[in-house]
């Protein structure tokens, strides 16, 4: 095929593309502080959970419509495995930047708070919004999370 002589704009764009493609994984891989390297230590870093307090009162008070659905926990476990486990760990124990969901801060939150977090994500900390999952599926995930109980219970 015939392309004209290489133009500065072309070189610039190619360079920028390469830089972005190469640098963005590194940006994500910037070493984090020792406290946030494991789920257990994430649990100690209370600032990770501060976002739970930012849910509006109306959202906090929402009740889980799937609470009494007998399939909700199993369906939630399936959805958790598909969408959440890759960051939060298979057992929700937390890994990397993703905090443990077995922490007291999470387990003591209302279902409405967890639903609000799922819906809005924590974009600044790298958690994407999950409103692309229909509401019933988000409630199913909340049902599963609340069924896990605190870390001590999970360990037992």
């Amino acid at each position, binding site marked *: *095929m*015939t*392309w*004209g002589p290489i*133009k500065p*704009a*072309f070189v610039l*764009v190619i360079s*920028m*593309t390469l830089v*972005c*493609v190469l640098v*963005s*994984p*590194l*940006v*994500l*891989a*910037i*070493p*984090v502080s020792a406290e946030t*390297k494991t789920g257990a230590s994430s649990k100690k870093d209370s600032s990770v959970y501060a976002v739970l307090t930012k849910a509006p009162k109306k959202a906090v008070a929402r009740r889980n419509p799937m609470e009494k659905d007998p*399939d909700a926990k*199993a*369906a*939630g*476990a*399936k*959805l958790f495995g*598909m*969408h959440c486990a*890759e960051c939060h760990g*298979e057992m929700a124990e937390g*890994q*990397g930047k993703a905090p443990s969901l077995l922490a007291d801060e999470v387990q003591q939150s209302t279902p409405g708070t967890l639903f609000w977090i799922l*819906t*809005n*994500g*924590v*974009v*600044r*900390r*790298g*958690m*994407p*919004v999950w*409103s*692309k*999952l*229909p*509401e*019933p*599926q988000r409630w*199913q995930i909340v049902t599963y999370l609340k069924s896990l109980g605190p870390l001590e219970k999970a360990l037992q």
Partner: protein
Amino acid sequence: MLVKITLSCDWVATTRTALLSMTNFASCESVASTIGPIQLDSIQLDSIQLDSIRPRVQRSFLLRCLLAFAGLAAFAAHAQESPYIVTYDHYLEEPGSLEVEYFSTFGTQRHSNDFHAFWAEFEYGATAWWTTELYFDGQTTFNDSTIFTGFRWENRFRLLQLEHFINPVLYIEYEQTSGADKILKEVEGHDVESDYAVPNSIARKEHDHELESKLLLSKTFKGWNVAENTIATKNLTGGNPWEFGYAIGASRPLALKALPNQCNFCPENFVAGVEMYGGLGDRYSFGLHETSHYLAAVAAWNLPSDWTLRLSPGFGLNDNSHRFLLRWGVSREFSGFGSAVGRLLGGRKQ
């Protein structure tokens, strides 16, 4: 020769250990299946005298490259993709995930040959608010030729952190394509069917450098996603004016609740909808005069095995449009790609 075989075994052992440490959720079967091609590759590399004379650094680099490809299989993630081909909703790629996609468009052409245009996409979630994507386009015009038609680099930025009634995303793309590009990823300005009737040998001589911006507005409510894209494009070659276009779409999963069991045919895995897109003229002649418009049904099947299939039959809505466009696509998402690359390059250890 004995030394070479020993080296191969050493490589395989190292590779197996590295793979197991890279991903503690990879099954033994998947590791074993991944080892196969590496073994062959290492033997081939040995045959070009990869022995103790070669610097250890070079071996390490090659090993890392092999691991990067082999490791991809272990980072597959279940995709929850929208069915749109042209329209964008406000959902970005998950941070650190790489989505590899292939799309095809078959189009009818009056007064010339039908065509099959295709493109590959590499979509990477750099952060939760920034997704960057690289496209490579090509096309086959029947009874003419098959040619590479250019590349595009696209970036999408989420403007607001929380979900709102309407969620805006800024889209900026640079594209360098030839005049023979036919993927119809968007329609803008006065794009009409007759533009695509030019033989490849002539059309490919035209080189376009375009800056394309879009404002993506999207909302999901009770399972329904409604998205609207406003397009403004400037061809940087020549004194072309800004051109405008639009795309709108609506879609919904077949079921809102998930079934508790894993299944390919669970209704929640299917998303169906409709999209409409077309041109709105340019700065000097804004409006519907001499523009083309399309209406297309869209459907996506999100398989639990990490693949997404999309199908979209579309129809031209006026005489300036291609009568029929059949699009389909297949994609696979690899989560944790960014951190895997980071680890291979000596970044964070998790």
